[in-house]
């Protein structure tokens, strides 16, 4: 069965994520960050930040509410049981700190088929409450047996 590519170009409703101090610390501890700017408010402020700094890969946390409806969209048609995460890219701009409100818009960048596998490429663009871009993500999911 050929891959249905009609959803390529589709854009989803923006979703806003409020970055909490304890969530940043929980994430930083889980991934083993030891830099005190992620864990200690005083250290973050001494380094010139308003509050604890989200590690770069915290982008997956604030992007998740926007990504979920795209991956689950019946028009995209991904069979989750057959899906693997093939690749991931982020480009970062302004740092994210606790207290920020990050709004992410997800879109389907490309859908293609190679060698019996479907390649579903999504893009997320995340901006902060000042309208500055904080991160752009490219998410490549591979679905076997299409």
């Amino acid at each position: 069965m050929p891959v249905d590519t009609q959803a390529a170009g589709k854009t989803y409703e923006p979703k806003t994520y409020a970055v909490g101090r304890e969530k940043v610390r929980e994430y930083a501890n889980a991934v083993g960050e030891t830099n005190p700017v992620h864990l200690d408010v005083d250290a973050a402020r001494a380094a010139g930040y308003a509050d604890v700094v989200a590690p770069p890969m915290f982008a997956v946390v604030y992007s998740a509410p926007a990504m979920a409806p795209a991956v689950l969209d019946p028009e995209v048609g991904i069979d989750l049981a057959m899906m693997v995460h093939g690749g991931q890219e982020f480009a970062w701009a302004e740092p994210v700190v606790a207290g920020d409100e990050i709004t992410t818009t997800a879109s389907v960048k490309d859908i293609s088929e190679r060698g019996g596998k479907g390649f579903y490429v999504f893009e997320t663009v995340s901006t902060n409450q000042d309208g500055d871009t904080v991160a752009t993500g490219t998410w490549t999911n591979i679905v076997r047996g299409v």
Partner: protein
Amino acid sequence: MAELNEGASLPDLKVTPDRYLTVRYAGASGDFNPIHIDEEFAKQVGLPGRILHGLYTMAQVARAQTEAAGGPEKLKRLAVQFRGMGLPEHEITVSGTVREVRDGVAVVDTVAEQDGKQIIRNAEAELATSD
């Protein structure tokens, strides 16, 4: 902070995720896919057991870059390909080499290995070399 000259190696980052790491990462990230947290479920779907979240391993690759470059804001871009699967209680080694430096950005080729196999390959990072 490491020297980010062309050809320089980043300091290796070595980390052994403990038995319950995937549970903590699931909570921290919101990804509760049972292949990461339920041993029996993972085995039922043909895996050797619970496997690491790929994005946890990518976070280790990111950490190797930010530690070498001197802070989270230095990491401007990271692109990775996931390969195979990572396992708890096995040491991960992230290594990297500066391929080129241009316009204040060091481009780093980096990989994550576990038990001699690359679980993140063909990864490329861009690090700011100045403020």
